[in-house]
C-alpha cells in the first residue's frame, strides 16, 4: 500500500496550531485576555524539564508538538525541496520566489516553483479520510468525492498552465505597497494533470443561478484560531467552465507536493494564482460573487478607475482582478553576464498574457530606442507560457541592459515604466531587464 500521508518538517508542523499543541503537550493554557503566560504552574515546570531533554522528547512525540525555540535550524529549502537559489521572503507563513534565471526550464520543475501561502501549510493529510465536498446555494444537492472517485469517474487532462501571483513585482511600486515584496519570481508554468472542474460540476448538477465557484482549503490561520478561514477565493462560472480549469492531483507527473496543494487543488491558469486554491476540502457554488476571506476589501483587487500614486481607494471602488496582464521574463543569461568584444549573445525567456496569447516578443539593448523582434513559439496549449529566444549583437564595448517586451493578441504591450499604481501593488507587468557588459 502506498504511503498515504505526506509529512513536512518539524517547525512547520509545530507552527501549524500552536495553541492546541501547547495544550496537548504541556497542558499549557495562556491567559485568554493577554494570550500570554501560564495559567497552570505545573505546565511551566514540565516545559522546563522537557526542554532539557529535547532529543528524547522529539523522538517519542513527533507530529507538531515541539517548542519552536528548539527548531531554529529548520530549513525551508529542505522542508520543501527547493533550489538553493530560491529567495525566502517570509517564514511565517512560508513565501518563497524564484529568480529569473531559475525559470529557464520550458516546464517549471517543483524545486523552482514559487511558494505563496496565506496561512500555515496543513501538517498531515490522510488521503484515506479525505474527500472533496461540493455544496453552496447553487447546487441541486450536496455531493462529495474521494480522490479515487474523482480519478475513476472523470476523464483526465494534462495542461501546461501559467500561474502568477497577483502581487508579483510588488517590490517596485512607489509609494510601496504592503505585503510580500515579490520581485519577478512569483510565476511558474508547470504541467498539471487532473479532471475538468466543468465535468465534476455537471455531475453534481447546478442550478441556473450559479455565478461563482468558491474554494475552501485545509490551511490554517496564522493567529492559531482554527475556526478562521485563511483565504477562500475562486472564479466566476465562465472561468470555471473552461476546458483548462482543472481540479488537479498531479504536478509534472507526480502527486502535487504538499506545499503546492496536495492532494487536490484548483488550477485556473492566467488568473492571479490565489484563484487556484490549494489543499481543497470543499467547493461552494455560489449564486453571487463569492464573498470568502480575501475576495473583498483591498485584497486581490485594484481600483476600478485609475488613481494617482498613493491614493486611498474605498473598498467599493475596488474591482476583482481576473485575467493577468501580458508579461515576459529573460531567463537566460542570468543578469550580470560579461562577454567579449565581437561575441554575440543568445537570450531566452518566456512570455504569457493571462487569458490571451502572446503575439510578439521584442528585445532592446538601447533602453527602448530600438527594438528587435525575437523568435516566439506558440503555446503548448492555451494558458501555457510561450518560449522565446534571440541572438543579440552589440555595437561597441560597455554596459548594456537587455529589456524584453511582449505584446498580446489584443496589441497590448508591456510598459517600460511601472504600470498604474494601486494600493496593494498588484499587476506589475513592466518589462523585465538584465545587465550585460561587453569587455575588450
Amino acid at each position, binding site marked *: 500500500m502506498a504511503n498515504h500521508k505526506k509529512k513536512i518538517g518539524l517547525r512547520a508542523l509545530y507552527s501549524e496550531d500552536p495553541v492546541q499543541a501547547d495544550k496537548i503537550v504541556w497542558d499549557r493554557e*495562556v491567559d485568554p485576555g493577554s494570550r500570554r503566560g501560564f495559567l497552570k504552574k505545573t505546565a511551566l515546570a514540565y516545559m522546563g524539564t522537557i526542554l532539557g531533554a529535547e532529543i528524547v522528547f522529539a523522538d517519542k512525540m513527533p507530529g507538531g508538538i515541539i517548542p519552536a525555540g528548539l527548531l*531554529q535550524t529548520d530549513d525551508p529549502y529542505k522542508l520543501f525541496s527547493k533550489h538553493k537559489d530560491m529567495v525566502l521572503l*517570509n517564514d511565517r507563513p512560508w513565501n518563497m520566489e524564484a529568480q529569473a534565471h531559475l525559470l529557464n526550464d520550458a516546464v517549471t520543475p517543483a524545486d523552482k516553483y514559487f511558494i505563496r501561502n496565506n496561512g500555515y501549510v496543513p501538517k498531515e493529510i490522510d488521503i484515506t479520510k479525505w474527500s472533496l465536498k461540493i455544496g453552496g446555494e447553487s447546487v441541486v444537492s450536496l455531493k462529495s468525492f474521494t480522490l479515487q472517485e474523482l480519478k475513476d469517474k472523470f476523464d483526465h487532462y494534462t495542461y501546461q498552465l501559467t500561474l502568477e501571483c497577483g502581487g508579483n513585482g510588488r517590490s517596485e511600486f512607489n*509609494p510601496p505597497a504592503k505585503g510580500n515584496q515579490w520581485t519577478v519570481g512569483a510565476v511558474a508554468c508547470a504541467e498539471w494533470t487532473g479532471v475538468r472542474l466543468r465535468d465534476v460540476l455537471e455531475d453534481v448538477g447546478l442550478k441556473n443561478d450559479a455565478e461563482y465557484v468558491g474554494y475552501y482549503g485545509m490551511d490554517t490561520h496564522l493567529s*492559531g484560531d482554527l475556526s478562521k478561514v485563511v483565504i477562500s477565493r475562486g472564479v466566476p462560472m465562465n472561468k470555471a467552465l473552461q476546458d483548462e480549469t482543472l481540479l488537479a492531483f498531479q504536478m509534472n507527473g507526480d502527486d502535487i507536493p504538499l506545499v503546492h496543494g496536495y492532494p487536490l487543488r484548483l488550477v485556473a491558469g492566467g488568473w492571479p494564482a490565489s484563484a487556484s486554491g490549494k489543499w481543497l476540502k470543499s467547493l461552494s457554488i455560489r449564486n453571487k460573487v463569492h464573498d470568502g476571506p480575501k475576495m473583498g476589501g483591498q485584497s486581490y483587487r485594484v481600483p476600478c478607475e485609475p488613481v494617482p500614486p498613493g491614493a486611498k481607494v474605498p473598498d467599493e471602488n475596488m474591482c476583482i482582478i481576473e485575467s493577468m496582464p501580458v508579461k515576459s521574463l529573460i531567463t537566460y543569461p542570468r543578469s550580470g553576464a560579461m562577454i567579449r568584444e565581437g561575441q554575440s549573445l543568445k537570450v531566452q525567456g518566456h512570455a504569457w498574457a493571462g487569458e490571451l496569447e502572446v503575439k510578439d516578443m521584442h528585445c532592446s539593448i538601447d533602453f527602448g530606442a530600438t527594438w528587435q523582434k525575437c523568435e516566439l513559439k506558440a503555446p503548448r496549449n492555451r494558458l501555457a507560457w510561450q518560449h522565446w529566444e534571440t541572438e543579440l549583437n552589440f555595437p561597441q564595448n560597455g554596459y548594456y541592459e537587455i529589456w524584453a517586451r511582449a505584446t498580446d493578441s489584443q496589441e497590448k504591450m508591456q510598459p517600460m515604466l511601472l504600470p498604474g499604481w494601486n494600493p496593494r501593488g498588484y499587476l506589475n507587468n513592466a518589462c523585465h531587464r538584465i545587465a550585460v557588459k561587453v569587455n575588450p
Partner: protein
Amino acid sequence: MQKNTKEDRLKKSITTLSRLLVIMFILLAVAIAGAAYLGIFYKPEHFSFLDSKVEEQESLQGERNNVLVWSDTSSVNSDGIHVASGLIVDDKLPLILTNCTGCHSTKLISQNRATREGWKSMIEWMQKTQKLWDLGENEEPILEYLSTHYAPKKTGRRTNLTDIEWYELSE
C-alpha cells in the same frame, strides 16, 4: 575491600550527579520563569539599560509559538541589525518583538516600507482581521520605530539595476 571502594565511588558519583541535575533543573526553571515574567509584565523602561548596549537573542519562550524576546546575551551585526530578527536596533525594538512576532515573521516588517500613516493602517488591518490586540500606550513608540527605520524610499517609476553580480559568460 577493593569492591567496597568501587561501590562507594559509584554511590558518591551518583549522588553528585543527581545533585547536579537538581541544580541544573532549578536554574532552568528560574530562567524560564524569568522569561515568562518578562513576557507577561513587559514594560519598555525595564529595558532602558539596553539603550546603548546592543545585543540579541532569540528566546525559547513565546506565548504563541515563535515570539522573539529581547534578552541581554544577544548579538547585533556591524550594520546595527538584530541578528535573530533581522530588524534595525534601537530602544524600541523590544516592543516590536513583543507585539509583532506572535503571528508573523519579522521578514514581513523588514521587507516593507511605509509612512507612519501607512504603518498605522496596517496595524488597524491586523486588529480588524488578524486578531492583533490593542497596543495601548505602546502604539506610539511602535509607529515611531516603524516609520523611522522602515520609511518609504523615493524610487520613481523605475530604479537603476543594483547589486549586479558580474560573471564571465563562456559559451
